[in-house]
């Protein structure tokens, strides 16, 4: 492949949306109320829509006959480049929204930078996604405040979720080889420069939600290099089941 770095770079962005989209999609029919069920599924559909644009572009760059579906459905666990945060399970509604919030704040800042990319396809995709993700961020941060500043029980659950998920936040700002190469070429976003504003905004919302900002400095990473937590395998089993059981099946 001529442009392996660009291909890997696109997958790194797209896999986050794909895996988080699948997680939110798991709630279809299982949300805590009819209204929040639809809201979570909406977010899932937004993310899958974004994924299609990225994978179509990646398939074009790969140029080896693979389609967007092949790239989405037929890779092995180690070939997925999503961050560990997005593959964490829907333990309860606080975890679901905590994960969404911790990712959305990063995602929005990332897309705003990607809009300035000198790669016209990437900047066009970013332009389209930024409105959707602004809404996601508004939705999830609203819920953090509601649950944090709600009852004693909702506060305790929200605090637990934030404490547990905190360890996966630092990876968002870790640069892979593809990241570094793309930043040098002017296509990519330098994620290390998003870190400070990220934690400032997260801390602001947590304070407003009367939650305690975790002090832990122990962080997990590896997802961007394909080293995942035990949860991703199960998620992929469900995501890929149909294509693995009935190869080339179509709607």
């Amino acid at each position, binding site marked *: 492949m001529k442009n392996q770095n660009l291909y890997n770079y696109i997958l790194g962005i797209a896999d986050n949306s794909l895996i988080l989209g699948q997680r939110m999609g798991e709630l279809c029919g299982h949300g*805590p*109320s*009819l*209204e*929040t069920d*639809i*809201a979570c599924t*909406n977010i899932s559909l937004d993310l899958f829509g974004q994924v299609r644009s990225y994978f179509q572009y990646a398939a074009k760059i790969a140029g080896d006959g693979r389609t967007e579906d092949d790239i989405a459905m037929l890779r092995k666990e180690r070939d997925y480049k999503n961050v560990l945060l997005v593959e964490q399970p829907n333990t309860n509604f606080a975890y679901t929204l905590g994960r969404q919030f911790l990712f959305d704040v990063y995602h929005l800042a990332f897309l705003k930078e990607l809009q300035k990319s000198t790669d016209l396809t990437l900047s066009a995709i970013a332009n389209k996604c930024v409105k959707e993700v602004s809404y996601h961020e*508004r*939705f999830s941060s*609203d819920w953090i405040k*509601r649950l944090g500043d709600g009852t004693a029980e909702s506060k305790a659950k929200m605090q637990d979720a934030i404490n547990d998920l905190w360890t996966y936040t630092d990876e968002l700002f870790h640069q892979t080889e593809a990241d570094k190469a793309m930043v040098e070429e002017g296509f990519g976003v330098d994620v290390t420069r998003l870190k400070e504003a990220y934690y400032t905004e997260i801390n602001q919302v947590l304070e407003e939600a009367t939650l305690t900002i975790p002090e832990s400095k122990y962080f997990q990473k590896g997802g961007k290099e394909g080293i995942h937590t035990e949860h991703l395998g199960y998620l992929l089993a469900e995501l890929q089941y149909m294509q693995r059981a009935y190869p080339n099946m179509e709607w």
Partner: protein
Amino acid sequence: MKNWPLWEVFVRSKNGLEHRHCGSLHAADEDMALENARDVYTRRSEGVSIWVVKSSNITASNPDNNGELFEPAHDKVYRHPTFYELPDEVKHM
């Protein structure tokens, strides 16, 4: 969430048209009601504006009184402006 009050949702489908009642939903407060309405009723681009009103704030007529309220109008055809010709340019009357 079972204690969330009920809200009525009105959506304006296009600028220039009126808001129309399209359904109801549950939400803890008006902000959440707007967000829920956006997700439940406008996700296939049905609207450009949303109103939400707490259902308990609506005063409704009693269906038992329908006879005295509405029936007297039935046999007075002269109350309806059906004898005028409407110019084609006038829409949404």
